[in-house]
């Protein structure tokens, strides 16, 4: 087999694609023929719970969703167990990019704080200019609040209010933040769950160290935008499901009963937190692999 | 008349030389009582109301007022030996309304024949009856010849 690989590598000046960690290959036996179905592995940020039908342009209209019931939308195969059913919710498209001027600040008006069925935190409808958008609502946000957004990093840290968005470098140490950019320009996709927040611990060089809700510390670039405050609906994690039927209404199916909290491979282990990690710049986009066909 | 639809060419001889029209209409006796100005046809499945109307108007110069069509389910029959079920083809029926002054009575060609048949059946029944009476009479005197009577 190894010789075969070597042979192929010499004849074709091609480079092996690193195997996608999330993609698994399932062989399904057809009658006399093997059909290869590629399906992703669970995890990696994909929920397999629903797809949202996004329009081409940003809109504040509640969007329609389609339930996936744990299936991969490409192959249609079951990937995640225990998902299915539930009340059909409407999705509110949150505008993740809080873009502000590099000089001065842009002011925005909160019109309404709404409940979104597809996420745990509340969303706030915000008006600026002739644009309407949703952002995640903070704990004490209410209609009529004025929010500020700026990309300016002053010499002395600003005194921010809840809901304002600033670069990490502009915020004082100890500030609670959410909706954090991993790298500058990369949509704010950290810290979204209800009641969570990150804390700015210290600053060094051009990095700012933030403790994320998982208690791990990461060093981000100081130009990463973050929104100030703790996310709304802080009692979400204390709320009881209440009944099995409520669980079904939430779109979860009965669990297998195999998982044990205190024992086994997946059970609890108490370990030290890993040391602070510096966020590396985003990897360059991967070259697309050519799929060669060979009728075997 | 449809011009698009021809029998599929088959190789070899003899070749098909007679082309029957694929639009046809058959006058049939209505199963239920109808107003006298309504005529019932069995028509080819491909014909529409408009086809039936133009067929009668253009070829037979009939004053057609209205045409209604329906598709009647073919009869089914159970095979006596093996018990499988066969079904006749469905037929399209066209009810053609003529002007109200017109009236059409379906001709009764076979009334004489039916009468004759009825008569024959009657005489057959009578002779059967006679034979039965004869048997009844002789039931209680076994062994006696038929001609013997008091």
């Amino acid at each position: 087999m190894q010789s075969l690989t070597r042979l192929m590598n010499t004849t074709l000046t091609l480079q092996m694609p690193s195997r996608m960690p999330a993609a698994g290959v399932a062989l399904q036996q057809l009658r006399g023929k093997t059909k290869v179905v590629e399906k992703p592995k669970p995890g990696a940020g994909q929920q397999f719970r629903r797809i949202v039908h996004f329009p081409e342009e940003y809109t504040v209209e509640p969007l329609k969703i389609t339930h996936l019931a744990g299936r991969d939308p490409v192959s249609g195969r079951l990937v995640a167990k225990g998902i299915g059913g539930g009340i059909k919710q409407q999705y509110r498209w949150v505008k993740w990019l809080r873009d502000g001027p590099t000089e001065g600040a842009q002011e925005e008006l909160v019109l309404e704080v709404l409940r979104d069925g597809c996420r745990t935190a509340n969303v706030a409808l915000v008006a600026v200019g002739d644009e309407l958008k949703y952002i995640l609502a903070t704990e004490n946000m209410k209609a009529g609040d004025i929010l500020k957004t700026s990309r300016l990093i002053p010499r002395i840290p600003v005194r921010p209010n809840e809901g304002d968005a600033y670069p990490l470098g502009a915020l004082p140490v100890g500030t609670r933040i959410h909706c954090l950019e991993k790298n500058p320009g990369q949509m704010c996709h950290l810290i979204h769950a209800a009641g969570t927040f990150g804390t700015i611990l210290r600053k060094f060089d051009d990095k700012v160290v933030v403790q994320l809700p998982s208690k791990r510390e990461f060093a981000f670039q100081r130009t990463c935008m973050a929104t100030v405050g703790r996310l709304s609906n802080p009692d979400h994690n204390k709320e009881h499901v209440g009944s099995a039927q409520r669980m079904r209404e939430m779109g979860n199916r009965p669990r297998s009963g195999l998982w044990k909290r205190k024992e086994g491979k997946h059970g609890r282990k108490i370990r030290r937190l890993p040391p602070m990690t510096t966020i590396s710049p985003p990897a360059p986009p991967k070259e697309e692999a050519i799929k060669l066909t060979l009728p075997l | 008349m449809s011009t698009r639809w021809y029998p599929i060419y088959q190789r070899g001889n003899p070749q098909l030389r007679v082309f029957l029209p694929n639009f046809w209409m058959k006058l049939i006796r209505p199963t239920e009582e109808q107003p006298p100005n309504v005529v019932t046809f069995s028509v080819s499945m491909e014909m529409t109301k408009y086809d039936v109307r133009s067929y009668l108007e253009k070829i037979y110069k009939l004053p057609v007022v209205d045409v209604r069509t329906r598709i009647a389910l073919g009869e089914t029959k159970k095979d006596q030996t093996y018990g499988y079920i066969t079904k006749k083809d469905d037929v399209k029926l066209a009810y053609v309304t003529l002007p109200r002054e017109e009236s059409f009575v379906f001709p009764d060609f076979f009334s004489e024949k039916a009468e004759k048949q009825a008569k024959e059946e009657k005489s057959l029944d009578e002779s059967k009856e006679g034979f039965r009476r004869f048997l009844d009479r002789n039931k209680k005197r076994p062994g006696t010849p038929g001609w013997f009577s008091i």
Partner: protein
Amino acid sequence: MRLTKTLCAQHIGWHFKKHWLVQGKRVPKETGAVAELLKLGVQVKNPEDLLNGKVERKIVDIVGTRVNTIPEDSSHPDWHSTVCHSYSDNNVLIGGLPQAQVLTNCIEIQTFPKQIEDVIASQQLPNSIDKSIRHAILASHVLDAEQVKLPKVRLPERPAFNLPRSYGISHERVNRLLVNKLLHETEKLAGRSVSIRRKLIDNATFKTSINKDGDLLGFSINAEKVIFANRAIEAVKGKFEGDLPDLYPMKTTISIPKHHIYQTDNFYPLRTDISCSHPHTIFTVFNKNLVKNAHGSGVTTSQLQARTLIKAFVVAAARARQLHGDSVEGALPKPIVVQSVQTDGRTFHFGVLQLNTLDLSANNPSKNYWFHRQNYDLFSECSYEAGRTHLTNYNGDVFRIFNAFYNN
């Protein structure tokens, strides 16, 4: 079976296949060949284009094919490069009445014009009128025999419930009957001398488009009932002062959808030389199942009142454009007064708009006037339960205002 060589033999083809699954996917190494070739002036093409080139299919024109819908892109005949803020019946101004005021350059006066106030205070109605109005309400809300499927009802606290579909009188019909019956009663009171000078029309459309501070605003609205009169309503005497509200940080055009496909023509449903062509009063129906905020929330009182104002404004502007030509800008030679009533069958909002100027820019010193009062409930509940009709908290003031508006 014995562990023989035959048993342990493995099918090499299977291994080839498994191997190929992995090895068949390759990322081409950048060899620099493309750059070299381009340097030599050789054309480089993507192999995909050569192998699976796109085949243009010709559309054959066959009799009976459906006409293709025109794609909604720049090839559309009504496509413009400048964007238009198009307000239609189902849009809601998110800023409510203040936004509508800024949009139409109106100052708010929280009473009716003096002549209407006088009529409301002084009119003599017969004693039997309340009985007739109660009957009209019941006849349109409960006693009409229409039975159609009503919109689905959802319980917010029980989102999983599918309640049985109820049948009844549709919202459109309830309002049509109610307005018609109230007008019938009013006309009986007014007599022929007044009612001959009025004409009624159902479902009239009005369209107009206006430039405001560089933004193009297009309006297309429908009024469920319109009263036309043979003489225009007199302008309100007196001058009114006031400031437009401040919307900062919102712009006035917020929440009005933007479109590239639009028509900018003016539409008024009657020609000018017909006897009753002056707009008098418009009745519009508010249906909470159809009219919602863009983000799905219900309509607030202020937004509802804004809707009354905008509808009146569009009617007045369309009339002004029809009278004075499409190019009319700035102050009108004679102000146009339109009365506007909005109802959802239970709540009524009355208002009077005086259109002084079509120049809507923020720094225009002359303003339009919007006279209105708060909403009135005609009743609190009207229903048919257990074989009996119920009409509670009937409010007779609504008909008095209604009557005064008709006779103005």
